[in-house]
Structure formats: structure tokens, C-alpha cells
């Protein structure tokens, strides 16, 4: 078992309360020491486990206790630039309770609550996700419209700060858009990238589904909702370019499947796709995937795509975390996409299936799909 240097020093010293207090006062947690990370918890318990979502490592790992103290620890290798979300399970009276790491102020929120976040060496939270007082803020609205496919739906609308009716804008449609706003700082990111000329002014539609696992799983009705209801409606309401090059579909996980599937249903309608950690499950033989029946329609779709890959858009940005179970599916999809002649960019990072990973890729993805006027402006 690997033991971190700080723990070795603690174990070798006096086990007094003062010494332990000094250890906690002298470190920030988890302790990152080059390529090693040490998780630490302090308290009385029967056992403490690290619970994380790093595919490839045991998802539950037991912390060891420093003899003669109430300090628990676990060290393993964490490659530079990694970002890992985790919780601690503290077992008392035979009952395990999952908690955020009380020693770590870094939290990542998601629809299920919040996880603690460990940053490997040289990972930095991008500065462009933070509000910039010099970046004019776009306007957010919520509109309602009646879809022939799904009935009444609400859609969030982002209009850039310098929005003018006399101009024409690209249209970005974001699956789980409200979650992107809440958990991936999408509004701030758009404001900042636009202000830095890294992406053009654009109109962004944030969609959210009341039944996403069904609607996003390569559902033909969802494709029709996008291409026959939503986009035409937005093109009537807003001055957006009615051109494939100016239309982008984006989503993460099932939202990425929904994006690719809608583009497949109507090739050439969306010229740009941004696919984050897509749940692109497939089989090489048979039609049952180990992921369960929710994935059956996805497997059918991806198998069909793999059998007959075709250019459905012009540019496709694909990204996936190396610590996701979906890395295999995404790596497998990319050569298929490339074989069609589409311009494909694939980015892997040391992160998991979570909103902050998807947030961190927005700059590269959006600016590659829609390069802003950065190359045209020389002040």
C-alpha cells in the first residue's frame, strides 16, 4: 500500500493531539504531492471509505487509520491534470453515511447534490468560467411554446449582450440546457467567450426534458421536436441564420446521443455538433448491451450508425473523460465519424462523467465549432 509522505511523517512523530492538530493546520486536503494524492479524514469510526467515480479504479477504497490517532488516510497515484469527484463513506454502528469531505472546500454541484472535488497536480479551474466584470452579460429569458410533438414546453433563451434585431446570429440548442446553466456556468462562459471574441455573438436555446431518458435515447419524436418544432419556432422569433453552418446541437451523456441522433434523422440540418461524454453504447454482436434496457434504443441507433456511418453535420466536437466508463464507446465512435469526411475534433481529459468536466470543455468546443472574430479583430 502506498502511503503519502505527509502521513509517513505524521505516523513517525508523536501521536499527541497537538501534533495531529499541527498536521491538519499545516496541510490542505486532499494532499497532492506530485503524482500522488492522499485523502484524509479525522474522527472516530469503524471504517472510512473513499467513494469515487473513476472508471478503472475500485469505486470504493478503504482508508487506513494512523495508529494511535483518529486520522484516516488513503494514497494513490493521480496523474497530473486529473479532476476527481468523490465522497467519503463513514461507517458507524454498522451503518455507512456518505459525506462530503469536510477538509476540502472544493465542491461540484449536480442535480443530485454536490460532491467533493480533488484536483491533481497542475489542474487549474479555468479562469474563463468565473464572472468577468468587463464582460457584458447576456440576457436570459424563458419562453413557452406549443410543440406539435410534445405539447407545451418551456425553453430558456440566452441573447448576447449586444443583441440586435438587425443582425443574424448562429443558434446553439443545448440539451439539459438549464442544468448546463446551473452546474456548468454556461451563462457566464458564453458572456466571457463572446467578450473575448473567442466565439461570435449567438442565440442559445436551453431545452430540458421531463422524460430525458426516454426522449434523448435516440427517440424519433425528439428529433422531430427539434427540427420541425423548436428550431423553426426560434427562427421565427429571433434573427438567427437559417443555415446548417449556423445551427449547433449540443449535449452531454444522453443529451449527446439526442444530438447525434437528431442530426442522423435529418442530415445536414445541423451543421455543428458538440457531443460531451456521449452514452454511445453499442454491441459488436447481438443487440443487448450490459448497460440495461434504457440503452436498448441507443444500442440500436449506434449499431446502425456504425454499420453505415454517414456525414450528418459538417463539424463535430467530441469529448470524453478518461475516467468515465463511456470512454471506450466514445473512442470507438470517433473513427466512425471521421470516416464520413466530417471535420471531427476529439478531446480526452482526465476527468469523469460530471458537469464540471463538461464545463471545462466548453471553451475549446464552442470556439472550434464557432470561431469568434478573434482572427479578424486587430485593435
Amino acid at each position, binding site marked *: 500500500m502506498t502511503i503519502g509522505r505527509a502521513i509517513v511523517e505524521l505516523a513517525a512523530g508523536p501521536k499527541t493531539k497537538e501534533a495531529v492538530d499541527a498536521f491538519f493546520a499545516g496541510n490542505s486536503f486532499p494532499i497532492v504531492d506530485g503524482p500522488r494524492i492522499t485523502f484524509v479524514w479525522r474522527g472516530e469510526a469503524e471504517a472510512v471509505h473513499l467513494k469515487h467515480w473513476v472508471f478503472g479504479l475500485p469505486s470504493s477504497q478503504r482508508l487506513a487509520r494512523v495508529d494511535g490517532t483518529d486520522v484516516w488516510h488513503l494514497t494513490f497515484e493521480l496523474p497530473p491534470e486529473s479532476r476527481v469527484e468523490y465522497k467519503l463513506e463513514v461507517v458507524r454502528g454498522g451503518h455507512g453515511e456518505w459525506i462530503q469531505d469536510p477538509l476540502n472546500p472544493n465542491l461540484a454541484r449536480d442535480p443530485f447534490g454536490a460532491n467533493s472535488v480533488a484536483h491533481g497536480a497542475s489542474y487549474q479551474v479555468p479562469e474563463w468560467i468565473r464572472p468577468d466584470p468587463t464582460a457584458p452579460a447576456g440576457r436570459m429569458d424563458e419562453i413557452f411554446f406549443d410543440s406539435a410533438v410534445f405539447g407545451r414546453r418551456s425553453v430558456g433563451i440566452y441573447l448576447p449582450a449586444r443583441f*440586435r434585431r*438587425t443582425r443574424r446570429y448562429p443558434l446553439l440548442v443545448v440539451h439539459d440546457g438549464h442544468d448546463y446553466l446551473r452546474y456548468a456556468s454556461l451563462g457566464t462562459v458564453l458572456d466571457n467567450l463572446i467578450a473575448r471574441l473567442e466565439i461570435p455573438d449567438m442565440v442559445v436555446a436551453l431545452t430540458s426534458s421531463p422524460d430525458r431518458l426516454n426522449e434523448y435515447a435516440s427517440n424519433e419524436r425528439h428529433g422531430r421536436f427539434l427540427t420541425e418544432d423548436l428550431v423553426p419556432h426560434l427562427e421565427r422569433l429571433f434573427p438567427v441564420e437559417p443555415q446548417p453552418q449556423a445551427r449547433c446541437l449540443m449535449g452531454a451523456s444522453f443529451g449527446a446521443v439526442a444530438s447525434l441522433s437528431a442530426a442522423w434523422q435529418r442530415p445536414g440540418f445541423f451543421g455543428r455538433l458538440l457531443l460531451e461524454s456521449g452514452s454511445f453504447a453499442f454491441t459488436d454482436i447481438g443487440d443487448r448491451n450490459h448497460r440495461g434496457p434504457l440503452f436498448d434504443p441507443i444500442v440500436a441507433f449506434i449499431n446502425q450508425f456504425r454499420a453505415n456511418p454517414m456525414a450528418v453535420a459538417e463539424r463535430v466536437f467530441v469529448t470524453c473523460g478518461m475516467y468515465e466508463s463511456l470512454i471506450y464507446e466514445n473512442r470507438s465512435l470517433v473513427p466512425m465519424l471521421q470516416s464520413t469526411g466530417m471535420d471531427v475534433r476529439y478531446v480526452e481529459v482526465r476527468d469523469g462523467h460530471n458537469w464540471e468536466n463538461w464545463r471545462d470543455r466548453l471553451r*475549446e468546443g464552442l470556439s472550434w465549432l464557432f*470561431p469568434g472574430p478573434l*482572427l479578424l*479583430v*486587430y*485593435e
Partner: protein
Amino acid sequence: MSPAPVILLGPQQAGGGHAGAVLRELGVTGPVALVTAGWQEREADDAALIAALGLPVVNLRLHARSEAVFAGDAPLTQAYKARQELLRHLQGFYRVRLDYIDDAARAISVRHVEPELLEQEWQVSVDLFRQIDSDHLERCRKIHAEFEDRWRLGERAIIARHRSEIAAVIGASAAVVIAGGHVASLLNRMKLFDVVGLAAGKPMVAWSAGAMVLTERIVLFHDYPPYGKAIAQVLDAGFGLAPGLVVLPDPLRRIRMDDTLGIARFAQRMAPSTCVAMGQGTQVVFEHGRILRASVDRLTTSGEVDRSWAGP
């Protein structure tokens, strides 16, 4: 070629202080005609610049005038937009070709063969870049020429009226000053109103995008785009008042000056034009179409940067 000086500058510190000093050195005391069309909708936010220039100024308001033209001449506007869309498509196709040539050059450069052979292949890659740069520029020129032939901009009433007003302002001005900004927007507005034609014989002081549009070839570049890599690309032909020069403003933020191979390839690609990196405080002075003097960094075909190049 204009006998009056054409002075190209780098980005302006404190709004336009260097340009103001250059105008004073030229002995300009009277009003100057100002072009800020590169600022697009912010065109009229010129108070700080005018204060820094320290002279009476009349802003030609080319962006606002172009909006008036587009609102008042529907057939022209439609054709203009179609032309711009065609140019955008061509620029995109050209970029795809550049990417493939770049990928091929990279793939060849790592082959384990004699260095002499790699050297030859390097030259082949540079020649391919030069060829598609040239083809792209020619296609752009052809599209502009056809558009001009078809629409005869100067004969359209609303444009003729604006040109007449602009001519009057320039005629009463001692010099024309062109600020930077969005280079395509600036180029198009200046073409629409034939500003360079109307300013013949007047001294011109221009910086950043303003300097780029006065050259023969406008080259877009950025070594640090957010998506990783951007190959320099020719945008369009400029007005040709600064022949033989490729202007690269703001090198501190945009150019990897220590990338010897990248600089060598770029300079070879643009040769025989001279590539100049124009930071703050730099200048190149033309008279009769020739460089009179310069104080600027020159990118050489060997990949070195010739600091404080003074001219040929």
C-alpha cells in the same frame, strides 16, 4: 503610387497617442478625416481617440453610412449579403485545404529519411501553401470584380451621395487616419465608399487593422486561439498602398516569436513580401509606394526575428 506618406503603426497605447505624435511630425495641424469603421457599432465612441490625437477630427462614420445604404438599397443589399456569404464559404474551404497541407507537412516532417530530402519536402509544403494562398486571393479578387461590374457601386444614388459627402470631408482634411478593429468590416466599408480613391494624395496614418487593409494582402493570424491551432490565412486583397509588406499587428499576444520553424515557414510562404510584427510604438513609413523608413520587427525566412528593422 501616392506621393503623400502612408504611415503604418502598431496598436495604439492610450487611445491613439502615437498616431497623434506622427501627425504632428508630419506637420498636420488642420482637421483630419477619421475612419473607425473597424469598431462596427461602436464606431461613434471616438471621444478618447480624438482627444489623444489632439487635432480637429471629422469621423467619416462609414459603418453608419453602410447601414443607411443597406436600409435604402434593397437589391444591392441582397446581392452584397450573398457575396459576403460566398466569400465566407470560400474562406472556410480554403481553411480546410490549409489544414490538410499542414497535416501532410507535419506527417512528412517526422519521416526517418535523409535531412536533405526532408528539406526538399519542406519547400514543397511551402510551395503548396503559396499556391493555395494565391488561388484564394485570385478567387476573392474575381468575386469583387464581378460584383463591381454588376452593381457599379459609384453609380447607385445612395452610395454616390455618401461618397460625395465623404469626398467633401476628406477634401477639407489635412490627412486621413484609419483606426484598427474588425479588419473585414473595415475593408468592406472602405471599399463601399471608395475611401482610398477619395483620399488620393492625402497623407494616411493607419494602425493595426487599418494598417492591414492598406497592404496588398490581408493575412489573418493567431498562434494562441482557444481551440489550439490556427494556420495563418489570407483574407483578401487590401488597397495596395503599402506594397510588399505583410502587416502582423500585436505580436505579443498573437505570435510565438520563439517558434523558429513556424516563423521561417510563414515568412517563406509570404515571400517576397516582408513580414513585419507591429507592436506598440512601431512604424513603417511609405512614400511613392516604397518604404522610406521603419522601426519594426521583421520575421525572416530563416526563422529569426530581425529586431528594430529600419527598412530595406
